[in-house]
Structure formats: structure tokens, C-alpha cells
């Protein structure tokens, strides 16, 4: 009698959160913030427009709770783009199929060079990423890459086109420790406007992908919304609701949430909602208080100064020195990028920032032999 996320989430539910958010009073925020265990309505109060006065208090609570649960540590990971081939048309993404530019897919030896580049810097947690094109990038391609990187990595992540249950069981057998799949936006109407061609058009199908990951027994799932595509409060609420559903349903699977903001995209695209720096602080700290053990991931999309401050507030995992194009580290630095990196500092700089703030950079948090 297994249920799927699409059975418990729909636009009506999301609309009801919208009504709730409009009616949050300052005393509701204060009450929620004083609780040890927050329910979903408390979470909504914390992300409401009303909650401005208590942001500092919320940040302090979030920092204390993060220290208690994760200690003075920060996990470091590196994205490794292997291909920008894509059969989807997503208005906000440079990989969109309508973008007529040369495409690049790493071959095995190019992949090895990129892995070596990253492991020499200390990375043991590597996330393989690609555009979505199962015809040009069959599962056997990824199986080959996973086998090649296995001896050098403690943790192997995958962020590629969504698979079905059988596909994830196959990837688990190939040694995948975690899979990342973003819904992009949980606003069905906006989703359909932004995804005009390719298998990604199907909103509900994508909504249930983390269920297949959970059912496959893969250890870790990363979810997220591209904040700004639609009303950010409702998208953050949807991600939190999704994460909570996943931790209850697949109680052995670790869930992480990414909080990427989209500021610009290919020409002609403009995000619907602006997410300010203070909003991002509100989002991260509210997620921490609602989901104390959830991983919160911060990429190099964000600027240096902000990243340095967010380290203290609830983030548990960061990338550093990243590129977003296939071969971007060594093989082909000029290939098509998915989006622009903002924090360009090399990883050794990030390590010293962490250490200066009293955080121990964690390179290894699983064992490659166990995958």
C-alpha cells in the first residue's frame, strides 16, 4: 500500500498554505519560534512575510541547533559535469535543447582527468551531473563512469535525468550513494509554462521521482526548487513538505535540501519572484528549525560574502571551486555552462574560511568500499 508524493500534494494544498501565510500574526511567529519541535504550520509562520522582527532570534536558534546536530563541521563536495546534451526545453536553463551550440560529452579518459583534478584537491564526495538525454547518455554510460571513479571516491552522487524504480535499483548496484533531483518549481501552472518540450514536461511524473529513489534503497536524496521561478514562499513550503514526507516514508534515507536562487537565465528569461539575501537567511534557518537533521546544501551560485555568513546559520554542505560545464576543470574549460558561478574562490580558500570560523572541513563522510 505504498503511496506517492503526488497522492499527498496538490495545488489545492498549496493554495491553502498561501491563505495561511497571509494570516500569520507576529504572535504566531513568536510562539512557533519558542517551540522545541515545530509542526508544518509553525514552519509556515517562520517563512511568512510577518516574520521580520524575529529573524535574528531565528538565526541564533538555527545556529545552535545545527551545531548540536552537526557540530563544527562542513561537508565539502564537488559537482562534475559530464555532458550538456539535453532533450528538454526549460526556459531558465542554458542547456535547453533550443540553444544551438556545440554539445560536449566527456569520454572515459576525459572523465578520469576531471576526477583526478578534483581528488588531488582533496574532494572525495563527487556529484556527477549532466543534461537530460537518455538516448545519448544511456545508463550504461553512467555505470562505466561510476566504476571508474569508485576507487577514488568515498561518496558518489548522481544528478541526471530521472529514472524509474528499476533504473535506480540499477544505479544503486553500480555504487551510487545519493541522487539529486530538483522539482524546479512545485507550482504546476508555472512548471508547465517553463517546461515546454521533452519528458520533463510531466509535472507529476517528476514529483514522484524521489519516491522511486527511496524505494530503491539508495542512501541519500537531494531535493530542491529553483527559488524565484514562482512564489518563493510557496516553493520553499513545498520543498519542506516534500522533505518531511520523504523522511517519514523512507525513514532510512537521508534527505538534503538545496536552496539555489535563480537570478538570471538565458536571454528572454526573467524569474518571477526575487529572493533577497535576507529571504535566503529566513529560508535556511526556518528549514533547520523544522527539519533539524536535514542536510542543507549551498552551491557557488551565491556570492562570497553571503556564503561566508551562511556557513554559520544552518548550511551543512558546500561546494567550492566549482564549474558547471562538461570538462570545466581541465578538459574543456570553454564548453557550454549550465549557469554562472558567482563564488570563484579555489577550494583552499574556502577551507581556510571554514577553519577561521572554527569549522572542520569534512571531505569524507562515507566509505567507497561500502557502496
Amino acid at each position, binding site marked *: 500500500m505504498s503511496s506517492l508524493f503526488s497522492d499527498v500534494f496538490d495545488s489545492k494544498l498549496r493554495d491553502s498554505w498561501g491563505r495561511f501565510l497571509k494570516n500569520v500574526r507576529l504572535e504566531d511567529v513568536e510562539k512557533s519560534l519558542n517551540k522545541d519541535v515545530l509542526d508544518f504550520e509553525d514552519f509556515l509562520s517562520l517563512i511568512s512575510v510577518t516574520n521580520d522582527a524575529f529573524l535574528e532570534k531565528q538565526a541564533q536558534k538555527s545556529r545552535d541547533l545545527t*551545531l*548540536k*546536530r*552537526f*557540530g*563544527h*563541521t562542513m561537508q565539502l563536495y564537488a559537482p562534475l559535469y559530464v555532458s550538456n546534451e539535453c532533450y528538454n526545453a526549460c526556459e531558465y536553463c542554458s542547456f535547453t535543447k533550443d540553444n544551438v551550440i556545440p554539445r560536449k560529452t566527456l569520454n572515459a579518459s576525459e572523465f578520469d582527468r576531471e576526477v583526478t583534478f578534483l581528488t588531488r584537491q582533496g574532494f572525495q564526495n563527487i556529484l556527477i551531473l549532466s543534461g537530460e538525454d537518455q538516448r545519448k547518455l544511456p545508463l550504461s554510460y553512467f555505470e562505466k563512469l561510476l566504476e571508474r571513479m569508485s576507487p577514488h571516491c*568515498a561518496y558518489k552522487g548522481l544528478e541526471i535525468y530521472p529514472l524509474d524504480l528499476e533504473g535506480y535499483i540499477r544505479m544503486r548496484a553500480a555504487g551510487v550513494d545519493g541522487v539529486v533531483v530538483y522539482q524546479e518549481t512545485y507550482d504546476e501552472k508555472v512548471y508547465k509554462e517553463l517546461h515546454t518540450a521533452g519528458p520533463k514536461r510531466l509535472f507529476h511524473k517528476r514529483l514522484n521521482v524521489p519516491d522511486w529513489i527511496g524505494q530503491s534503497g539508495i*542512501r541519500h536524496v537531494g531535493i530542491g526548487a529553483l527559488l524565484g521561478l514562482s512564489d518563493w514562499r510557496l516553493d520553499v513550503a513545498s520543498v519542506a513538505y516534500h522533505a518531511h514526507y520523504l*523522511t517519514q516514508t523512507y*525513514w*532510512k*534515507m*537521508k*534527505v538534503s535540501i538545496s536552496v539555489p536562487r535563480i537570478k538570471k537565465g538565458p536571454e528572454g528569461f526573467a524569474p518571477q519572484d526575487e529572493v533577497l539575501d535576507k529571504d535566503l537567511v529566513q529560508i535556511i534557518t526556518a528549514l533547520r528549525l523544522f527539519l*533539524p*537533521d536535514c542536510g542543507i546544501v549551498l552551491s557557488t551560485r551565491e556570492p562570497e560574502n553571503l556564503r561566508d555568513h551562511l556557513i554559520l546559520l544552518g548550511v551543512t554542505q558546500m561546494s567550492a571551486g566549482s564549474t558547471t560545464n562538461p570538462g570545466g576543470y581541465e578538459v574543456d574549460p570553454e564548453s557550454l555552462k549550465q549557469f554562472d558561478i558567482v563564488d570563484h574562490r579555489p577550494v583552499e580558500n574556502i577551507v581556510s574560511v571554514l*577553519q577561521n570560523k*572554527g*569549522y*572542520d572541513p*569534512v571531505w*569524507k*563522510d*562515507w*566509505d567507497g*568500499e*561500502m557502496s
Partner: protein
Amino acid sequence: MKSDELFVGNRGLKSRLFLGTGKFASSKHMMDALEASGAEVVTMALRRVNIDDPQDSLLSVIDPSRYIILPNTAGARDADEAVRLAHIAKRSGGIDWIKLEVTPEINHLLPDGVETLKAAEKLVRDGFTVLPYIQADPLLAKRLEEVGCATVMPLGSPIGTNKGLKTRDMLAYIIQQSQIPVVVDAGLGLPSHAAEAMEMGADAVLVNTAISIARYPKNMAIAFSKAVEAGRIAYLSGRGDVSDTARASSPLTGFLRK
């Protein structure tokens, strides 16, 4: 006071404080706390260390001739994963003491008793000295003793919560019944919690979060070390019962012996 060594497996220990190495800001903070604590047993997560690499940032700072390294199987979701992790430690690091943790539940890292017992049986057969992390479940503790574990390590409250001895009554039953050392693990947030466990007759305690996230970890380590010692001495001194009614200090039947 005569020697009060604690025997775990075949090793005699002077300190009854075990220290966990997670969550510290750096290896230096950890080492400062470790040295100040006087602890001899140090736990570390196998998933965090490169056990076969002498340059590993954690392993390289801990002198194995001074400390007993107790790797743990944190992250294992079932018996099979825990057994495999333990064998990695043995094969790569030559270490055969294992703190058995099977914690599939992500939110509170609560131990799975069924899988823990399965893994313990196998690891004891494979020649390990097994120290299992368990719920404060007196029957499970006896079952683990029967299969040959070196200790049991029941939790005071869930890992990292600093809530103290929320499982106090069940811990008391475990301590009463156990023929192997009882090491209270997890949830001890203050030195007074550690002292309380020792006063109850626990053989040792394991502390990590409370020390590693203190503003001054080294000083907190000293505080815990003193609390453990005080609690132990109090226990050995025959502490008085806690009672709701007043009791005369001259026993009522004293006249019979006059």
C-alpha cells in the same frame, strides 16, 4: 583507595570517560580536549576516517600507543553494513575493537536492536571485541551479553540532544543485571549527567557533543573528567538511598544489638 581499574575485553582502563571525536572544530581542538580529559578510549566514525592512511587528519594525531582507538560503524543501516564496516577497520587498520552502531533511523539516530544483535553475534564470532550502542533495553542488554559482547552501551537520551538520563529507570535495571561493563552513551549534556550515571553504578560514560560544541572544549573535558571521577567515588562509597520519607539517623532497631 585501592586500584579501581575497569576491564573491557582484555584491557584495563584507569579512566572511565570515553571520548567521541566528532563535531570538533579541528583535530587540534579534539586533541586538546582528549589530553585534558584523561580518557584512554577514543571513538571515531569509520565513515569519516581513511583508516588505511597514516596521514589521515584524525588518525595521524592520535597516538595508538597511548589511546585505544574504538572505531564505530555510524551510518550502518543494517547488520550487514555494520559487519562490513568493522571488517574494513580490521583489514585496513588492524583494529579489532568495534563500537557497533546500527542507526538506520535518520532523525534521532536511534539504534536498531534487532540488527544490532545480529551484527554483534557475527562480529564476536569473527574475533572482534564488540561494544554495542543500544536503547536502554534491559533484555537486549542481556542478550548481547550472552552472545559475548565486551560491554553494553545504552543511551541516556538520543545522540546529540544533551538531555541527560531520560532513560534512567531502564538504565538502573541494566546496571543491576549486567555482568559486563555498562557504558552510558549518548545524550549526556552536562558533567552532572555523567556524575549521575556514575553514581547509579554505570561503569563508564561516553561523551562527545557536550564537549565538542562547548565554547571551551578543553575545559569542558576537564569538567566531565572530574564529574566521572566524583560519581564513581560516590558510587563506591555507598551512596544513600533517595527517599520520600524522613529516616531517623539512629536506626529504630539499634536497641536489639545493645
